[in-house]
């Protein structure tokens, strides 16, 4: 039985409404058709095939994208190999200056990048404008400065570039992931063949235009578009020295296995299922914001999303009530609208996967709760969702859903929550909410995860190393540690 409360119940059925505030799209320039970016030029694919990319919020086609086959990938690798000879030998200062140029150009064209990112991927314009694009530019800016300072990062170790890096990135932060991959690779003197995800190629191709405009020597960065087969061609190419992959744990394992017989170096940034832990002494209103940001940021398409909520039993009722109230205020809809909190699910396929998990969760006996908001009739949308009374063995608790779906479990003691939080194959991130400093340090040292947010969640910065424990992958991106995967000693 819920306790009676004297607090007034929040009423959401008022005349208050947000007027639409859509971002203008007239200033962007998109071509009808995009070719592959190899050796500094856009070239037609050997496959002669193109695939369409859609706006997931409207189902409208945005452009045709070239599909790279193994021959195209080979061409890109050859260009990268040729470019490596020169690029690894030009002065580190010059290398840094090229990267600075890319950073500045991205800042200048930030608005265009943000709008295209939102149109192609479905994320709210507020996020692409305030997070994805500025962070991407800052990432280039940060690593540009490292180019001529590597000797200080690794004293007495004589750091050297590895060679040609094959980089495969996901669809949840398309431009940002491209920046996370390309910036440290260039700063350390490597050359790159990068493949964006097939549903979100556009900002990577706009980045290719920008790189061409920056005057970066031909072949230093090559961008090949396509789906899994294109990625496999990169992974299996004999003249690639390093693979950097961000994506699902399943594909990460396939890649690790595929290159077992080679000397290729590997970094993997894979899935997660983070515990977000709320103690009774936490600042609850801030914690509610942290829970919402943790799971509903970018529609929950975040490998480090706080998708498992653990609430201490004594405050569970109040936290769940406040959380439900806060969810009622979330606006789900047109990603280009500046008021939108939750945009479109990235693809039909992903929406199907999320809906499959909603069904599984109900069948397993967890209690489904969704906000009462309306969602657009066209496009791929999903209401913010809770699974209350979830238990550790539920698949919705153990498996990564990659959508706006939060499981809720309660706990009594700190030992219990540490055990539950760690009892999962993943180890990418975690959240802790408490006012007690010693409790924070106790927990952060015991949670087996690469990033721990204490009294905050989903914060990123170029200077801050990011990456997983256990099956969430290995290697770090960001900060000094992010240089190491691209160097040999």
């Amino acid at each position, binding site marked *: 039985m819920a306790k009676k409360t004297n607090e007034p119940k929040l009423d959401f059925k008022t005349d208050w409404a947000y007027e639409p505030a859509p971002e203008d799209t007239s200033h962007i320039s998109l071509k009808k058709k995009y070719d592959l970016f190899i050796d500094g030029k856009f070239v037609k694919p050997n496959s002669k095939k193109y695939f369409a990319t859609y706006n997931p919020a409207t189902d409208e086609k945005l452009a045709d994208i070239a599909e790279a086959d193994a021959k195209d990938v080979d061409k890109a690798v050859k260009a990268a190999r040729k470019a490596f000879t020169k690029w690894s030998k030009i002065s580190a200062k010059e290398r840094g200056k090229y990267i600075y140029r890319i950073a500045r150009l991205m800042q200048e064209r930030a608005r265009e990048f943000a709008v295209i990112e939102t149109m192609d991927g479905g994320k709210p314009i507020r996020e692409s404008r305030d997070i994805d694009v500025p962070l991407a530019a800052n990432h280039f800016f940060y690593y540009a400065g490292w180019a001529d300072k590597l000797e200080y990062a690794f004293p007495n170790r004589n750091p050297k570039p590895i060679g040609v890096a094959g980089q495969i990135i996901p669809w949840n932060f398309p431009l940002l992931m491209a920046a996370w991959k390309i910036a440290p690779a260039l700063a350390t003197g490597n050359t790159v063949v990068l493949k964006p995800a097939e549903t979100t190629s556009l900002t990577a191709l706009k980045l290719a235009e920008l790189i061409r405009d920056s005057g970066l020597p031909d072949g230093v960065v090559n961008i090949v578009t396509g789906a899994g087969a294109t990625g496999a061609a990169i992974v299996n190419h004999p003249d690639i020295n390093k693979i950097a992959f961000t994506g699902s744990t399943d594909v990460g394992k396939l890649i690790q296995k595929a290159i077992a*017989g080679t000397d290729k170096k590997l970094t*993997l940034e*894979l899935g997660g299922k983070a515990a977000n832990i709320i103690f009774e002494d936490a600042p609850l209103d801030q914690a509610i914001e942290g829970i919402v940001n943790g799971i509903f940021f970018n529609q929950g398409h975040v490998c480090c999303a706080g998708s498992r909520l653990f609430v201490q039993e004594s405050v569970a009722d109040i936290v769940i009530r406040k959380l439900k109230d806060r969810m009622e205020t979330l606006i789900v809809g047109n990603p280009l609208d500046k008021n939108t909190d939750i945009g479109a699910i990235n693809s039909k396929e992903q929406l199907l996967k999320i809906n499959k998990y909603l069904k599984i969760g109900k069948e397993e006996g967890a209690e489904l709760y969704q906000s009462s908001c309306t969602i657009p009739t066209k496009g791929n949308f999903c209401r913010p969702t809770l699974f209350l009374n979830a238990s550790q063995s539920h698949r919705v608790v153990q498996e990564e859903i990659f959508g706006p779906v939060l499981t809720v479990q309660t706990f009594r003691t700190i030992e219990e929550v540490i055990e539950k939080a760690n009892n999962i194959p993943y180890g990418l991130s975690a959240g802790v909410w408490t006012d007690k400093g010693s409790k924070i340090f106790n927990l952060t040292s015991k949670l087996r995860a690469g*990033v721990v947010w204490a009294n*905050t969640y989903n914060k990123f*910065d170029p*200077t801050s*190393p990011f990456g997983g424990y*256990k099956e969430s992958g290995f290697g770090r991106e960001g900060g000094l*540690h992010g240089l190491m995967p691209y160097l040999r000693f």
Partner: protein
Amino acid sequence: MERLEILKTYKIFIGGQFPRTESGRYYPLKNKNGDVITNICLSSRKDFRNAEVSARNAFGGWSGKSAFNRSQILYRIAEIMEGRKEQFISELVMQGRAAKSAKEEVELSIERMVYYAGWCDKYQQLFSSVNPVASSHFNFSVAEPTGVVAIIASEEKSLLGLVSAVAPVIAGGNTCVVLASESKPLCSVTFAEVLNTSDVPSGVVNILTGNSEELHCHFSSHMDVNAIVTYRNNRKEIKAIKENASLNVKRVFVYNENSLESDKAESPYFIFDLQEIKTTWHPIENIGSAKAGY
């Protein structure tokens, strides 16, 4: 009257105890004249699994010890090794080494243990960072041990290879299961006895004797092992190890046993390889009038 010698039984080392292999199997160890010196345990998959459980159970306690304490314990290992020096030398000689080079190997092994003992409370400051993020947060990264490490130690450098493999792993707070040299296993058992009398908690290091062709697949496919290190340059085994490692995204490191005697084998980066970097964020309150220095 000539005294009848008591022969030592060489057994494996799991969870601080010296059991025989559960499989009941053995292989005879012979000297260069072909005489049997002793019978050695031919460890099985089940032995490995038991050892892994011991290593996992020991991980929380060992990784939770203060760096200073770990350093003291590693130094203690070196002290006890020094006391057993003659025994190590005679075992190497029994296995066919010349006395002079046996002495060199034992002394270098002790030096190496001291070297890594010193690193225990120092590498953290090399690999940690405070990260100057642009937002109002305090953000820092520290190194934490990867977990349970499976080690396939050098076949040729039976003591130096064992010590060089184990020291950086445990200096960093990991626990491990080690497959010792098959053809030269004597020192590994004696080294286990050293560990057992050096305040090393039981289960931190577990040592098996046996055959890598049989065991490398089990070492690399176990789902509760976090990393695997091999010193054996066998391309077929390395490939299988890397493939199996993908089952649970194990970290794999292949080291060169030929450089064990050189300075290259001494580096904090051997510790770093088996560390995970953890980044912690916390908000900083922005004090309104704090622009002036205070």
